């Protein structure tokens, strides 16, 4: 990965470009590209690039141009099939002046125009300038791995890999987008292209934006998570489909080992990262080097499973342990990188892990991200299945009781727990065909965090978070299975908006490390989306086909283990080992009232409660983290002050 920035003066009154302006933007994201800087300034366009050199270390500096220098590109990410693309382009007469994957972009664009993106296998944020057409293209990869943001002000269109670079553009100020925060505190992330910054947007995953001298932004979706009509799934025996899945994963992993620097792998102790590491070991000659994190809290720690895999693979391994004090100390820095409030502290350990990899000399790591979304791993998919089953006979206590398998704390009693289950999970049970059925309980629970909004802040919210989702779901969803609808929503909200950004790219790039995700190869996703849902989750056995496809590569202890969601210590981490000064300061009535987002009296009671309880419930945990992280966000970005 790298960092890209740029400004397009499409209006008559654009401020003349200077290298200093572009440098000021690049300096904000130097962590994304510490190995070099590049610029291209010509007439209305200015492009900048901060480089993390991974392929063609000597010759891959950007911006890169085509033969007659009429097309220029800055690019963040990897085009994994660049070798094959280059071969075909050279056969068509194109001349290359570097060995880098970036150069295929300008030549492909010459041949195919905007359709060039259909040829790409990879993860990317691309800004391409066509000087003949005076047109700027911004493109973001299929699943939303590489970030890309933009804003418009006074005849200028500015873009950057991170928002902090946009805040260096003259006239761009940080203001909280009330709807963005409302959506985040319901759906876990703002609805794309919204961000929590007012007037700053992201290029949505799988989209291409075209901006010409009129300043009009045209958005095209070139790729989307799509599913077949119910019943119209891939044919073939379980064995055949498992074999096809395995071949795809081998290829996706092999392509992601293309690099001129050493490549490592994260190992969580769960199925997905174990599969990735095992595929590297078996199907490549890359020496396997792994990294993992553990927790002092035994309930969250997976070190024992990591050890099983390390022994099984014979990998050279580095491990780091995350304490409560680490969470409390590093939380503000994590918010600086996520550029977003959070509901969990889970990004912090991911930052520690990327730092460990970098300290050990690794700029690239493969991880198991995406398997749960594509191949059916999450508890919310089980919950959806059980609630669909329950909706067919809402009076049934036995059907509702299946939820207790997912949430053992609900196991109040056999006979009469139904009333509570009805209250907590019965939302929407009368209409299980509605598009968002799968996620209604989660959004209802998460939305309780908004009870802490101040009265004045509530007045700024004119459209409900779930209403903002209207239009996200394609009309054809009514023909999809309920299971696939749940997968779609998960991919469109939590995956791209939170996991790949706040827990993914941002925590990796904070340490100048690139993450690569074989399960998010769009060919793997397209194959997985066409599988019969019953093979993704057999009854309530998650990722069934993935297990079938890879079981010979893994110890039984890994394939048979109960799935443990990745969690980090939340609210108690800020109190158990001494409370940092910034927590007291930012949660004080003075700060809460000054920033205006939350009700100071309610926040005080919340803080008292989580301080008092050794193990607060998830609603209180999320509320505490949401309030604290929003206060930090405001201090860092709006007040432009450090949080120490």
């Amino acid at each position, binding site marked *: 990965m790298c960092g890209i920035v740029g400004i397009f003066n499409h209006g008559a009154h654009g401020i003349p470009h200077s290298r200093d302006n572009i440098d000021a933007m690049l300096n904000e994201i130097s962590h994304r590209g510490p190995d070099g800087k590049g610029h291209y300034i010509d007439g209305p366009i200015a492009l900048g690039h901060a480089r993390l050199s991974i392929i063609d270390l000597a010759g891959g500096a950007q911006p890169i141009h085509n033969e007659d220098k009429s097309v220029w590109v800055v690019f963040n990410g990897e085009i994994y099939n660049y070798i094959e693309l280059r071969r075909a382009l050279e056969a068509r007469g194109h001349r290359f002046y570097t060995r880098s994957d970036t150069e295929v972009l300008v030549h492909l664009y010459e041949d195919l125009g905007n359709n060039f993106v259909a040829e790409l296998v990879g993860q990317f944020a691309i800004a391409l300038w066509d000087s003949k057409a005076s047109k700027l293209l911004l493109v973001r990869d299929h699943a939303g791995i590489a970030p890309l943001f933009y804003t418009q002000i006074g005849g200028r269109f500015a873009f950057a890999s991170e928002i902090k670079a946009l805040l260096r553009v003259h006239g761009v100020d940080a203001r909280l987008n009330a709807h963005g925060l409302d959506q985040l505190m319901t759906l876990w992330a703002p609805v794309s292209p919204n961000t929590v910054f007012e007037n700053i947007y992201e290029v949505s995953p799988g989209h291409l934006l075209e901006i010409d001298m009129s300043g009009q932004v045209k958005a095209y979706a070139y790729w989307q998570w799509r599913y077949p009509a119910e019943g119209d799934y891939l044919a073939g025996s379980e064995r055949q489909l498992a074999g096809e899945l395995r071949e795809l994963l081998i290829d996706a992993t092999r392509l992601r080992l293309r690099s001129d620097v050493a490549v490592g792998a994260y190992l969580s102790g769960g199925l997905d990262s174990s599969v990735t590491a095992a595929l590297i070991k078996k199907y490549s000659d890359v020496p396997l080097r792994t990294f993992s994190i553990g927790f002092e809290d035994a309930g969250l720690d997976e070190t024992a499973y990591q050890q099983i895999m390390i022994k099984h693979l014979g990998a050279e391994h580095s491990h780091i342990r995350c304490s409560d004090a680490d969470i409390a100390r590093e939380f503000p820095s994590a918010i600086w990188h996520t550029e977003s409030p959070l509901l969990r502290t889970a990004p912090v350990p991911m930052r520690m892990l990327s730092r460990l990899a970098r300290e050990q000399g690794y700029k690239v790591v493969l991880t198991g991200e995406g398997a749960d979304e594509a191949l059916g791993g999450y508890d919310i998919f089980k919950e959806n299945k059980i609630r669909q089953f329950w909706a067919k006979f809402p009076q049934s206590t036995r059907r509702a009781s299946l939820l207790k398998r997912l*949430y053992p*704390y*609900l196991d*109040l*009693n*056999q*006979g*009469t*727990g139904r*009333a*509570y289950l009805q*209250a*907590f999970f019965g939302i929407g049970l009368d209409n299980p065909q509605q598009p968002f059925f799968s996620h209604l309980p989660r959004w209802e*629970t998460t939305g*309780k965090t908004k*009870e*802490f909004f101040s009265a004045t802040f509530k007045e700024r919210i004119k459209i409900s978070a779930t209403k903002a989702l209207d239009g996200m779901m394609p009309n054809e969803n009514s023909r999809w299975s309920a299971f696939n609808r749940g997968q779609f929503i998960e991919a469109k909200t939590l995956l791209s908006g939170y996991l790949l950004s706040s827990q993914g790219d941002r925590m990796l790039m904070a340490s100048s490390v690139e993450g690569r995700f074989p399960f998010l190869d769009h060919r793997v996703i397209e194959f997985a989306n066409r599988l019969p849902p019953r093979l993704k989750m057999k009854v309530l056995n998650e990722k069934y086909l993935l297990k079938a496809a890879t079981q010979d590569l893994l110890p039984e202890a890994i394939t048979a283990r109960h799935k443990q969601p990745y969690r980090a210590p939340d609210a108690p981490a800020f109190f158990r080992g001494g409370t940092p000064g910034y927590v007291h300061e930012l949660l004080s009535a003075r700060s809460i009232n000054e920033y205006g987002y939350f*009700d100071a*009296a*309610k*926040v005080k*009671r*919340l803080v008292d*409660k989580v301080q008092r309880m050794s193990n607060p*419930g*998830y*609603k209180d945990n999320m509320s505490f983290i949401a309030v604290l992280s929003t206060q930090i966000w405001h201090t860092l970005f709006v007040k432009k002050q450090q949080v120490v």
Partner: protein
Amino acid sequence: MSTQNMIVDYILQNFLFSDDRSLINPDDSFLAKGIIDSTGIMELIFFIEDQFGVKISDEEMIPENLDSVTRIVKFVARKKAG
């Protein structure tokens, strides 16, 4: 302090994060008003057991006993009497 006031205070402090007593009527259903969620019910049970020195069996963990201030007051009184 009366049992009822203790319960009202507890609900206000821990679930509504307020001291505005007008927010809760003793007969309000916690479930219908969304006051208590799936983890909150455990918190409530711990509170009743600790505060009033009673043990709540599995069979007693039902809305008929626990779903409003009034119901809890009556339930605690029955437990103490029994």
